[in-house]
């Protein structure tokens, strides 16, 4: 009896009213820069939920001990526009390796020649995810991106707005899911910092704190080469609706397709 009671209590503690599944596929605060034309960035996002949702709820697989591998391919179109494409996968005991969904994300930025004091870009992302991973199967996001580097410090803010196109949250309207990052260059190659990810729920009326998702990651960026991107972090969720412990890594490789000419 006690076990049933505790289970019901735990379910009530972990699951928000709309039963939103936490993404955990691409955990990244965007910088304002875009990929240069004639070049491609290939990133592998590896995220492991060490402590998360343990129960199948409304047919959604639990996040506990899920390993997410996301392939992100971003192609530079102009010196102010790129398009990103995502393939989400999940691996978990009992469920094996599964395809989760795909997203596409065009992004434009303020060109350098405008001489803005901060980097600014805006991306929009639309895509599908299978209902066993999220009841909201079609979603859309618009993400303003603002960043600034001052001496050794780096600041980025992504006040993203989300909209469910198909699923239980379709009537919720715009949701507010900001991300932010503060970084510090310890050396030319090693930076460290904190990343913050949240989902406050409906923009018109935020969920109570308990049902919001709030995560803080301690991260390090290794700037070993302009061709490589390496980001490693450990994150903790601080609300009842957030997975409590995640480990994330991003390994990116930049490919330049145009043969470099000294006169370009």
């Amino acid at each position, binding site marked *: 009896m006690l076990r049933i009671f505790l289970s019901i209590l735990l379910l009530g503690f972990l699951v928000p009213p709309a039963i939103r599944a936490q993404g955990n596929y691409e955990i990244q605060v965007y910088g304002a820069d875009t990929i240069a034309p004639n070049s491609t960035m290939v990133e592998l996002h590896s995220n492991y939920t060490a402590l998360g949702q343990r129960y199948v709820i409304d047919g959604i697989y639990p996040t506990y001990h899920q390993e997410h591998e996301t392939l992100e391919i971003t192609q530079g179109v102009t010196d102010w526009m790129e398009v990103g494409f995502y393939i989400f996968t999940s691996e978990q005991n009992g469920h094996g390796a599964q395809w989760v969904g795909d997203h596409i994300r065009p992004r434009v930025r303020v060109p*350098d020649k405008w001489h803005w004091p901060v980097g600014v870009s805006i991306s929009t992302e639309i895509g599908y995810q299978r209902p066993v991973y999220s009841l909201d199967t079609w979603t859309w996001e618009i993400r303003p991106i603002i960043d*600034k580097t001052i001496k050794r*410090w780096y600041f980025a803010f992504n006040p993203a707005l989300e909209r469910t196109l198909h699923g239980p949250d379709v009537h919720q309207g715009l949701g507010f899911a900001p991300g932010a990052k503060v970084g510090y*260059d310890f050396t030319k190659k090693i930076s460290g910092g904190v990343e913050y990810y949240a989902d406050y729920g409906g923009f018109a009326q935020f969920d109570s704190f308990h049902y919001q998702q709030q995560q803080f990651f301690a991260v390090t960026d290794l*700037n070993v080469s302009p061709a490589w991107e390496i980001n490693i972090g450990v994150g903790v969720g601080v609300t009842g609706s957030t997975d409590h412990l995640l480990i994330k890594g991003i390994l990116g490789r930049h490919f330049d397709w145009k043969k470099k*000419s*000294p*006169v*370009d």
Partner: protein
Amino acid sequence: MVTRREFLKTCAIGASVGGYARGREATAPDYTIDIAPYSLEFSHRREIKTIAYNGQVPGPLLRFQEGKLVTININNKTDIPEVVHWHGMFLGSSVDGAMEEGTPMIAPGGASQISFIPQPAGFRWYHTHTFAGHNLNRGQYTGQHGFLWIEPRENPARYDAEFFLALHDWRGQLLGSGDGSMNPSYDVSTVNGRVLGFGAPLRVKAGQRMLLHILNSSATDCHWIALAGHQFTVVALDGNRVPNPAAVPMLSIAPAERVSAIVELNNPGVWVLGEVRKHIKQAGMGIVVEYANKSGEPQWQQPETLTWDYLKFADTGTDVSGSNKALEIPLVFKSKFTGHGDMDHWTINGKSYPNTEIIGLKEGERYRLQFRNESTDHHPLHLHRHTFELRQMGDRKTRGIMKDVVLVPSNTPVDVEFTANHPGSTLFHCHQQDHMDMGFMLLFRYI
């Protein structure tokens, strides 16, 4: 630590109180230079607000007779202390135009009268020598530059037409770059203050020999220049005749360097003289060369490589390994990372100006500066008040090329020699404004 900005500020206050020319009876000047704000129309209805000399960019061409005293009035009509450096000349430290050597700054609204005996003959230039730091609308980033021609007894080559051209970059901003730090990047590049197609063309005639004196007055960037359909025969570097004039398809000119070259006008047409690198030419760096009785669209022939070698113009007839028993002064250059959101700081032998070592010189002694550039950048190094001779580039020894600026590539040993024959404080620095502002300077002092 005292920064260059703080050091200059302290000195500037002293100078403005002292008033350099006050108390002296003014004589009629040969030239007057007004330093004042100016709107440069670099393209049709497109302007840059800058600071210039006598309301023009470049400033007026000043012609001096070698050895004949000249007097110049300088009026500072800006709201910041200014100073004019007479680049490539053998002047006393008090008039050379570097606060660090002891030349007084001219206070905002102030005036100064200076007199000097111009030498050596050749293509020199004058420009501001102030701190800019993170403000890319100050110092050498502005339009404060002009040509100096000190008439030689004998010209380096016979010519029919002569043109002075200044290469400059504008509207800079600090952007992150491949080396992990912030570097200036520019929106607009000009020849004589105009983008390609906006300024008047160089009008020439077939059969003429055209002498070009080209100055790179850019605050930070090297430039490669070609003239479609023609070659250059380089006759002088930094205003000094080269021992071996040679034909080349393009010129490489580092900040503060000058190249004088003859062009045989034997290919009638309308041609473009411009930057070889496409993005800089696209930013405007070019000028039209128009033969008489020819018209049509200016033609450009895009080179596919960048080629340049100082030693092509070196003395080939003497023993390059010959030594003048010069005293060796090793100078090691390194960058210091201060964040991905900042410019690198610079050290010479481990220290940044004004904390760099002051090196003593004995009058009459020969010195060999051994440049060891342990950074990833190339550096246009300038020695004030003296001319030096290139002695080694990489593993190649050389003789006969006299310069006052040399581009020292990354991790390439370069040696130069000079004779200490102009007593007085002598500044040595990288001529990239962002590098000198961030510590890449030191002083030589005669003892």
